[in-house]
């Protein structure tokens, strides 16, 4: 069995499982945020009307809640949803509620690894499609709709069809100036936005294990854009260290067997990877940066669970140090712990000296909510994950998805720029 199958076998108390088999699994961790939380509350209300008890959750200690999409509240409906969420966690005894502006807070998929809320070998489900991100820790992590989340919260179980696994092997290190984002965009360009529909995407090879934990999270994060059920990487010492630094040592990590089966293996040569962008209006519409370098930009956005982790900000700082941005540049660290670390490392001063704006942690403009949405005809280069029409604002705005290095280099020149071509 490969790692995905091993985790699903463990969680379903089966000795082994095979692709396409349906298994009923025990969930280890579950998460809601300020969009899926109110959605689940609505499902609970419906169930209650049918005479079904929704008095208590299966295990409040395994559930955590983040406020990230519509925070800080821009208007009263969002503000009321936050109140609703607070009442929910209070009523159900959920203690891990990361309240906006209170201690640690930020984007849910960032908190999951920053706070070691999910551990290797676990089954983790949440009411958000980018839940796949957390698979980089060696967990089975996937997103669910509101009804399924309501069911999990009440029962602690859910059924899954064991997905087939596509294995993406990166042989050799990525060259300087090429990041995990370039690699995953290249993959999505190759297989398409439904190329991994209901499949697991596993990453491995020397190039992947050379990557930092933050970089690996970019790979699994964007498996959602290929339609994947989950993204996963077998954990190594870097993951063990990352979790130990956060006080998490008590878990059983799983790895695939030496004879693990994959539906298909894709091999990539690290040295051949290049800075890459996804052009409007699909993550599969990829091109190498040097072929799009004539595109003039209005704005650069560095944010989201995909592109505002500590290593992402470090890459941006490397480019912006001693340089000035030529277009509006908005940098929103993905969690307050990352913001602090960026401050301690001098990145925030570099950003401000370059003329960029530094904003609070939030999903913000990535989902077009607020904090820098785009006007009609505006063109943005962004470290986020989706560039569908209207995703980041006006339906006639355009978003180019890129790595933090490409976004920062482009901010400096005002045009889409390969960081290798920067003076």
């Amino acid at each position, binding site marked *: 069995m490969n790692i995905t199958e091993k985790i699903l076998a463990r969680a379903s108390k089966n000795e082994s499982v095979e692709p396409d088999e349906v298994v009923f699994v025990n969930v280890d961790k579950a998460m809601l945020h300020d969009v899926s939380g109110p959605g689940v509350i609505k*499902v609970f209300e419906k169930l209650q009307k*049918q005479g079904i008890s929704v008095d208590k959750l299966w295990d409040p200690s395994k559930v955590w809640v983040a406020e990230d999409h519509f925070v800080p509240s821009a208007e009263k409906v969002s503000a009321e949803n936050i109140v609703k969420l607070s009442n929910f966690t209070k009523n159900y005894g959920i203690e891990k509620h990361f309240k906006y502006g209170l201690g640690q807070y930020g984007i849910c998929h960032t908190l999951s690894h920053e706070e070691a809320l999910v551990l290797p070998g676990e089954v983790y489900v949440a009411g958000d499609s980018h839940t796949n991100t957390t698979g980089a820790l060696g967990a089975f992590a996937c997103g669910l709709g509101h*009804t399924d989340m309501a069911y999990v919260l009440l029962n602690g179980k859910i059924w899954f069809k064991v997905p087939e696994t596509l294995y993406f092997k990166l042989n050799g290190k990525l060259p300087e100036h090429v990041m995990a984002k370039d690699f995953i965009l290249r993959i999505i360009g190759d297989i398409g936005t439904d190329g991994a529909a209901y499949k697991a995407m596993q990453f491995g090879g020397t190039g992947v294990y050379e990557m930092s934990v933050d970089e690996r999270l970019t790979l699994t994060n964007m498996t959602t854009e290929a339609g994947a059920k989950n993204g996963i990487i077998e954990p190594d010492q870097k993951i063990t260290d990352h979790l130990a630094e956060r006080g998490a040592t008590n878990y059983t990590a799983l790895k695939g067997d030496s004879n693990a089966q994959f539906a298909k293996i894709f091999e990539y040569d690290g040295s051949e990877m290049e800075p890459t962008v996804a052009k409007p209006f699909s993550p599969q519409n990829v091109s190498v940066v040097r072929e799009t370098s004539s595109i003039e930009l209005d704005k650069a956005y560095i944010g989201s669970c995909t592109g505002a982790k500590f290593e992402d900000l470090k890459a941006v700082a490397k480019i912006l140090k001693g340089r000035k941005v030529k277009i509006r540049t908005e940098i929103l660290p993905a969690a307050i712990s990352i913001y602090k670390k960026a401050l301690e490392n001098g990145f925030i001063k570099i950003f401000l000296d370059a003329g960029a704006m530094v904003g609070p942690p939030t999903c913000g403009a990535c989902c077009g909510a607020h904090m820098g949405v785009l006007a009609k005809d505006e063109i943005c280069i962004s470290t986020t994950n989706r560039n569908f029409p209207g995703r980041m604002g006006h339906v006639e705005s355009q978003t180019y998805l890129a790595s933090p290095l490409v976004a920062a280099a482009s901010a400096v020149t005002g045009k889409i720029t390969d960081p290798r071509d920067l003076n």
Partner: protein
Amino acid sequence: MDRFKKIKSIVTPFDKVNVDTDQIVPKQFLKLIQKTGFGKFLFYNWRFNSDEKPNSGFILNDPKYKNSKILITQDNFGCGSSREHAVWALQDYGFSVIIAPSFADIFFSNCFKNGLLAIILNSKIVEKLLKIQTEIEVDLENQIIKTDTEIIPFQIDEYKKKNLLNGLDEIALTLKYQDKILEYEKKSTISSLL
């Protein structure tokens, strides 16, 4: 949920691939969690111009399709965000059946959780149905689609079919048997349940 009955209706041909849930319900409506009324936000950016007047060029605004209950579309419908609001909007607008060569995973699951029938048909048949101008009938019980000239069979998971036909809510159904499930689990391992 209501019992799923035979649906006879003209089909709305929506010839687009990779329609993502941001297009089905744009972000500004996600914070709203009222029980009904999401239909007015369906395909908002396509249905309405920037002055919020209907875009006459958009297929749903063609009076011909006003009462259509069946949407025919292309591959990977419902990709992107997991928002269940997308299903609520399609249903509230009046659709009971969505037909496509493939659906995105979370969206597909959300459909059946809310009683919306999502049918997967091969691309050639979908191409043909996209051009059909007359009413068609979706007969879930017999798993067929009847057009004026032919009968097209379709596949569906038995469990999903039963729930739709009986108007059973999957979650409510399981929870109603919670005591029995727990009792059974005590006696046996989970694996033997399957």
